[in-house]
């Protein structure tokens, strides 16, 4: 029977392989050819998607990279577009305002992410133990349906000192009306609170889906062994739920790094620079100062920091291989 490769091309008979080195070479080259062909065949259906991704994701990155090495400062339009080497990077990296905005963003992400994770897991547990929890889950998901700009506006009204409901309630209870959006630390906290309120339901949904799909047998066994709720949670739920938790952390982490609309509407980066997080700093550099070269350099730095962080996180904590 003649041997056929998967591609349909005939391979030389097996006995010929051993005849001489040249024939062996031919064999290996043919095998390589067939593998390539196979690869091409497999890749072909994905080609439109690959091209789309190349166009949509890679092109802007390449353009941004190009702009980051050029002078695109429209406030000083002479020599516009000229190649300036790493000058933009140098200026950005020596700018204390940039590092401060990075620090504020990282702190913000850590605070909001931790709070959302904890609240998400707690709420998911509570919902899991409630009968007919689906209507509750639907109600809980309402904030996630609102656009960030709407949430920002809502936050601006709710926390407004003059007519906001939150300062009114605090005044009713404690007798003093706080200036929630005028004091730096409070404005920062309010921003984080709004973000947590907006997106915790999403994590709740993700964790809830993970929890209800966990096998029951290990819990039954743990119960027989006399494990407490906390022990079951610590040694069973958390490890089994870890891939879901990591997915949640990555999704929300990336999303939190992009926070912008709420800042623009609620505080405008103020008071002072208290809520001027990195994205707002980029926006300010690009669209208020119109220094597109600097803004591009900051964007490239941000991507450079983000990609390895996500990669390492996914592969070390999340057991990425298993998930794959």
């Amino acid at each position, binding site marked *: 029977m003649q041997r056929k490769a998967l591609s349909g091309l005939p391979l030389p008979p097996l006995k010929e392989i051993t005849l001489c080195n040249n024939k062996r070479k031919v064999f290996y080259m043919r095998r390589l050819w067939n593998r390539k062909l196979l690869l091409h065949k497999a890749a072909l259906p994905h080609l439109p998607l690959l091209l789309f991704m190349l166009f949509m994701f890679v092109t802007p990155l390449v353009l941004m990279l190009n702009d980051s090495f050029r002078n695109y400062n429209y406030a000083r339009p002479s020599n*516009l577009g000229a190649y300036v080497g790493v000058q933009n990077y140098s200026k950005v990296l020596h700018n204390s305002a940039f590092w401060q905005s990075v620090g504020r963003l990282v702190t913000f992400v850590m605070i909001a992410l931790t709070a959302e994770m904890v609240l998400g897991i707690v709420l998911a547990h509570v919902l899991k133990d409630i009968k007919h929890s689906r209507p509750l889950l639907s109600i809980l998901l309402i904030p996630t349906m609102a656009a960030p700009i709407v949430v920002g506006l809502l936050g601006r009204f709710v926390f407004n000192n003059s007519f906001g409901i939150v300062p009114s309630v605090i005044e009713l209870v404690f007798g003093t009306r706080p*200036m929630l959006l005028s004091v730096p630390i409070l404005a920062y906290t309010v921003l984080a609170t709004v973000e947590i309120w907006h997106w915790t339901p999403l994590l709740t949904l993700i964790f809830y889906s993970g929890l209800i799909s966990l096998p029951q047998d290990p819990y039954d066994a743990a119960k027989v062994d006399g494990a407490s709720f906390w022990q079951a949670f610590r040694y069973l739920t958390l490890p089994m739920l870890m891939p879901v938790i990591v997915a949640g952390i990555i999704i929300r982490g990336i999303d939190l790094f992009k926070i912008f609309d709420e800042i623009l509407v609620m505080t*405008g980066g103020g008071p*002072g620079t208290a809520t001027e997080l990195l994205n707002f700093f980029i926006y300010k550099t690009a669209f208020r100062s119109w220094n597109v070269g600097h803004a591009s350099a900051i964007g490239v730095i941000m991507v450079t920091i983000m990609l390895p962080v996500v990669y390492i996180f996914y592969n070390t904590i999340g057991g990425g291989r298993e998930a794959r």
Partner: protein
Amino acid sequence: MFFSKRCVVMLVVLTAVVTLGSVIFGGSLEPRQQQMLDEFRANTAAAEFYDQVKAAYDGTTISAATWAGPQNEGIERYLPVFAELTGIIVNYNTFQFDLVTEKVKMDAVAKAGNYDLVEIAYQHLGWFAENDFLVPTKVFMENDTLRSPILNRDDITWATWQASSWYDDVCYGFPSVACSMYLWYRKDLFEDPTEKANFLAEYGYELAPPETWEQFKDIAKFFTRKKGKTLAGEVLKRNVYGTAVQGKRSDALTCEWLVYAWAFGGGVFKGGIPSKENLIINSPGSVAALEFYKSLLEFSPPGTLEYDYEGPTTAFQQELVVGLCVEWNDQGFGLEDPTKSMVVGKMGYGAVPMEVDQTTQGLPCVSHWGGWTQSVPKYSKHPEAAYLLSQWIISPITEPFLTADLAVIPLRESTYSVLPEVANIAPVAATGDALKCTHYRPRIPEWGEMEEEMRIALSRCLIGELSPQEALDWLYSRYMEILE
């Protein structure tokens, strides 16, 4: 069948009725629009001109990006008249203050040509002009087929036009908004006998619109009262305040503080001439102005650091602030609107006091110019049609309609003679005085970045992160870097 036959018939009939209705009634003009159209047609020269325009541009569609101010709401109302006259369809987009500037700048940088006519705040004109993003108006004015016979350029208030639309002796459009800042005060309380007597007893001089900044502060302090005290014979049910500061990190903050800076002999550039050598942002006058400005927080509502343009307006409307403040004239119309305001007819408007030796400045008071211009961008797809629109908006027939409807500040001298009652509207009358002592923000391309840094410096000072001297020293060093 998903739909019954009867249902389909009803849908068809309904669609036909709606289409027919929109064809019959949708095309017809409102009485005011019809009146404007009749005035254009009654003017022989204008009618002939627009007949020729219609023949050339009928069916053209243009797009405009403008600021969401009262002027543009009025213009939108009368666009069907322009369409009737010229055959040009206009997509008139209005955006919030910061957004319109961003949009039109982005459109220019991308060379997209999404907008055929753009509205630009005068302080950003230098950015557009230096980047060669605008078509000089001369190009259109020299074209006989585009020049309206009723334009009458001499009738446009020259100071307003120059301040809004000219850069380096080149005209880039027609003025569209004439804003200026002046003093707001509660006239009824200033005239109240009890309040007057109490003020005289406490401060030793008559209660009247302030002529010095010390008087300004005295009045702010005098009207700051706790719940339970009396105001004009009435017991207060909540705390009230003597003034309001627009303390949010926004352009409102920089606009307001600059009035104080100029009044105290400070500012950005000495003599308004932009150069590193002329920087006076941390001069003693500027520092004194910021110290004074910050001291007013004591007599402002607790939420004053969240206020932008609308903050003081709302506070006055709701009688939370009952003294005085410095504000924009266009916000004044909100105070005289009975559907929104509790202080209709109770407000007085006047000049902002000048602290420094008036002879050096040559001005009796201080005001802040905030005009806009409507210009044609270089990448406009229909530049001529866009110019025709801007020319129609400023025409001596259109403006009185806009003014009468919305009480916007006239840009033509003749409008005051056509509508003499306009001059008696309180916010308009005070504008005339304010325009006599107007100061301007720099119009250099760097101003966008400089203004952003000023917001930060002022905000950091108001929240107590930096002292006035530290804040302005920091700003000075940033300006030196920017102007390098």
